[in-house]
């Protein structure tokens, strides 16, 4: 396991970040380059693009919103800077913190916009949680799918040509794309990277059979998962829909977005601290994202969201690397008991089963067993013991 010499990202990151060949990860390289980017001319490019798709009669743009700081910022930017009429679309994964739910509901009043909130059946969601966890160690898979599908379905159906995303997640975390690429949203990126190669049809009974996982069947069929079906290429050509990332056109900072929307719109951060990260401005739309979903990232790859947040803050000059390391040491290994309890009761699973299944996803490139405990190398180069190996 290797760590970036500038931030605290490991080479075992969920998405390859270039540390196999370099001491500095691609996200840090991007961050360096962004200091010399000609942002004004990119803004002109964006304005040109916007002017070409602006509509007389229809919504100009779809914005997928969770009610988070970035959602607020994107909506604010679209309306006030780009003079667009957006349609807000939310995939609601049923895991909102109360303050997150509140932020979400206030959006249409604050911004005077139309807002579609899609809420799948809770029973279906519980099943998706269980299958997601058992199949790939990610109970929140349904949310990645919904967030990257429902807004696009709506855009296709309403004939809206533009979807405005914030930053490209894996570029922000791992430097997947360079700032010169001006990458747009693609179906392949969604399936391979966001959804780990699975799609809605992996979760039906038929799909699970084809995958050789009849043991995970929960009685789901296509009828239950229409919200997960990405529009066809033909549909998207008809509506001429393109998904642009604002992060390619304006300098992007989650922290600055949060400051701005707190000030302008009274956006509220998490009321209570999270168990697994020091940041309170992220992921209040889904309690598990900072909780057990992130704990599973630690179990799989040996790092968590505190690493992600610290790395981003180091790049923004808000933390030194030493401070970042402190955060990693404080938070990455924390077992989020509150969050786990909520989830276990939500899906009716025992803690023992949870641990056994979670362990099956530990990466052998990171973890090894020693005297009944899981061990790995930490950022200071020292091997340490963590959880007990789950008994059979």
């Amino acid at each position: 396991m290797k760590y970036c010499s500038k931030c605290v990202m490991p080479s075992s990151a969920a998405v390859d970040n270039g540390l196999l060949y370099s001491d500095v990860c691609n996200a840090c390289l991007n961050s360096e380059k962004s200091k010399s980017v000609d942002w004004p001319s990119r803004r002109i490019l964006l304005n040109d693009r916007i002017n070409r798709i602006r509509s007389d009669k229809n919504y100009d743009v779809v914005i997928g919103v969770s009610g988070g700081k970035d959602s607020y910022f994107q909506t604010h930017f679209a309306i006030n800077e780009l003079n667009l009429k957006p349609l807000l679309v939310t995939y609601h994964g049923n895991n909102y913190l109360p303050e997150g739910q509140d932020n979400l509901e206030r959006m249409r009043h604050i911004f005077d916009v139309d807002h579609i909130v899609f809420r799948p059946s809770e029973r279906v969601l519980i099943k998706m949680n269980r299958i997601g966890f058992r199949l790939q160690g990610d109970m929140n898979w349904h949310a990645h799918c919904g967030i990257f599908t429902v807004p696009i379905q709506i855009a296709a159906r309403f004939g809206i040509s533009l979807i405005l995303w914030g930053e490209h997640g894996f570029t922000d975390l791992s430097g997947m794309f360079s700032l010169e690429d001006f990458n747009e949203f693609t179906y392949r990126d969604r399936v391979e990277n966001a959804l780990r190669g699975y799609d809605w049809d992996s979760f039906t009974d038929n799909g699970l059979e084809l995958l050789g996982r009849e043991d995970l069947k929960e009685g789901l069929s296509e009828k239950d998962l229409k919200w997960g079906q990405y529009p066809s290429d033909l549909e998207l050509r008809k509506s001429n829909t393109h998904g642009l990332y604002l992060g390619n056109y304006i300098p992007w900072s989650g922290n600055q977005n949060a400051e701005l929307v707190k000030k302008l719109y009274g956006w509220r951060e998490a009321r209570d601290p999270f168990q697994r990260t020091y940041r309170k401005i992220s992921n209040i739309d889904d309690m598990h994202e900072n909780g057990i979903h992130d704990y599973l990232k630690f179990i799989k790859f040996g790092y968590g969201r505190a690493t992600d947040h610290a790395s981003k803050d180091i790049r923004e000059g808000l933390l030194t690397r030493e401070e970042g390391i402190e955060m990693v040491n404080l938070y990455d290994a924390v077992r989020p008991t509150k969050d786990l309890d909520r989830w276990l009761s939500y899906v009716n699973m025992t803690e023992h089963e949870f641990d056994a299944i979670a362990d099956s996803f530990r990466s052998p490139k990171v973890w090894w067993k020693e005297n009944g405990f899981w061990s790995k190398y930490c950022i200071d180069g020292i091997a340490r013991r963590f959880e007990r190996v789950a008994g059979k």
Partner: protein
Amino acid sequence: MSLKRIIPVLLIKDGNLVRSSDFSDHRFVGDPFKQCERFNSWQIDEITYLDIDRERKISDGFRTDKRARRIREIGDIQRFVSQICQVPLAWGGNLRTESDAGRAIEVFGADKVIFTSAVDSSPSAVSATAKRFGSQAICCGIDFRIIDGKPQVFVEAGRKLIRHSFEEWLTFCLELGAGEILLHAIDRDGKKCGYDIEVLQVATGLTKVPIVVLGGAGNPNHMVDAVKNGASGVAASNVWHFVDNFSEMIRENFVQSGIEIRQP
């Protein structure tokens, strides 16, 4: 007359699909197969895979939480690709011997092989392969940079300068039996600034063999430009990852520009 060809190029490094700039900044964008399936569904004209590994460090991104094929070495990728690719396929990169090429064609279903550095390190392998499989199965890749206004040929992924002129090198490739030439502009890799039209014109003036251009494609107009200047095929590696349904945008553009293009 035969139609002009649109040719996506998929770059493989460490077992991953990567995007590239300057022949050096290679970043993971996904696995080698899904995009091939996308190209199948778009009924693209041909697909080229380039194995740009230098150090053979398979990053073994295999994970139990991901649905992906397990890749241990380049042969695994070649084998899976041969099972899924439904359009004409070319393999290039790290092909040094006749048996490398023979394996790509006979075992892994490639219709064409692309020899680039082999023209320098093992030219007899190139000519032997041409004799065995015919010139139509042999493409020679010419990677070049513009130095003092002239194209200079490089091999070994842009690291070794060839001390012959571009014209001499092109002629040499033809003598070895190349049935197609792939002109790859190193300076334009990842820049989205358009193809090198001047060098294309030099090449089309020198030979009657089909010429395919690569390096610098950013939008369909670049491709139209290359075709109007004599390219038989237009290849691009990065841009497919930046825009979805790009082949349709290209086709519409070609039709509007009066260039006949194959419609699915």
